[in-house]
């Protein structure tokens, strides 16, 4: 132990780190085990709705899940095609199940399995 280490800021106590890590990991594990995992479905349906109006390129859909301590964010980035490619809005007479431009591309996407949380990480909350 050198004399200089006395002046350095004390590192965060390991017990504090233990608590923080536990709170984060367990908030997500609890969400994952309670109830059905709706996130993949949500993603598929969101994409299907957008595909109804816009021709989405599957390669230009980016889904990101960021797990934080207090809240998690689900980020869906869809790159829209240039203006002339945008479809006309679907009218009432059009069958909803069949979008104007072929199949809804979102539907055959395989959603990431890890994506299981879209909620606040209420640690003290138990189902």
């Amino acid at each position, binding site marked *: 132990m050198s004399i200089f280490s006395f002046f350095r800021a004390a590192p965060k*106590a*390991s*017990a*504090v780190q*233990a*608590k923080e*890590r*536990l*709170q984060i*990991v*367990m908030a997500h*594990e*609890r969400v994952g*085990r*309670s109830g059905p995992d709706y996130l993949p479905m949500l993603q598929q349906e969101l994409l299907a709705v957008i595909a109804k109006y816009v021709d989405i390129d599957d390669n230009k859909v980016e889904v990101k899940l960021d797990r934080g301590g207090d809240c998690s964010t689900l980020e869906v980035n869809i790159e829209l095609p240039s203006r002339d490619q945008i479809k006309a809005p679907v009218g009432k007479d059009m069958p909803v199940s069949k979008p104007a431009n072929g199949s809804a591309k979102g539907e055959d996407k395989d959603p990431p399995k890890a994506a299981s949380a879209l909620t606040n990480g209420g*640690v*003290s*909350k*138990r*189902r």
Partner: protein
Amino acid sequence: MGKIIVMTSGKGGVGKTTSSAAFATGLALRGFKTVVIDFDVGLRNLDLVMGCERRVVFDFINVINGEAKLNQALVKDKRVDNLYILPTSQTRDKDALTKEGVERILNELSKEFDYIVCDSPAGIERGALMALYFADHAVIVTNPEVSSVRDSDRILGVLNSKSRRAEKGLEPVTQQLLLTRYDPERVERGEMLKVDDVLEILAIPLLGVIPESQAVLRASNIGMPVILDENSNAGQAYLDAVGRFLGEEVEHRFTSAQKKGLFSRLLRRTA
């Protein structure tokens, strides 16, 4: 009707068997007729901790299979009245535990005993599931350490979804935390999770804090439940926990470090 208590944790080596032995002995000391059952089929150890390993003739699995009568398999404790041990098999595996078989034995025991303490094996597989399935009360044995806390949370999830009470929509299994191997000095140095940290994370009521104590190993060496070592901190902490379990208000002890004099501080430095 006897009450069924499960000592469970998910993680191994946190003190389930030590706590089961101590708790069952504590309940018997209070005058309740108590039996403690080893659910760790294939890895029998409760008999050693209770000091009755040389008196085991038949076991839990023999009774389930109808190879022995329940009364033949129950081992009466030599030190404490009202205390019985139902050891498990060392040769069979956990598949020998059938839900119907376990239920039949527990029903039979609950006619005769006030408390049935189920010493769960580690893990969340068959043995552990059978130990907790019929429980009325669960004591979650946890060390102040990340993997133990996480596993305890997992086992709480299992209790809330896979126990008989959960499946039948009955009143849920009561859940209480028994924090073992607690070292107040390391907590003060910021090296160990505090009681309050664990309580905040697991969000269940606290039954007791058992301090890290050399008495635990000493007791298991000689096959005596540590609760009978009334001079030890751990023994006293278990006695307190049993009191709390029975609804008494007992203040928590051994949760803060003993104030040390200058002399012992200096000694510690050089040690």
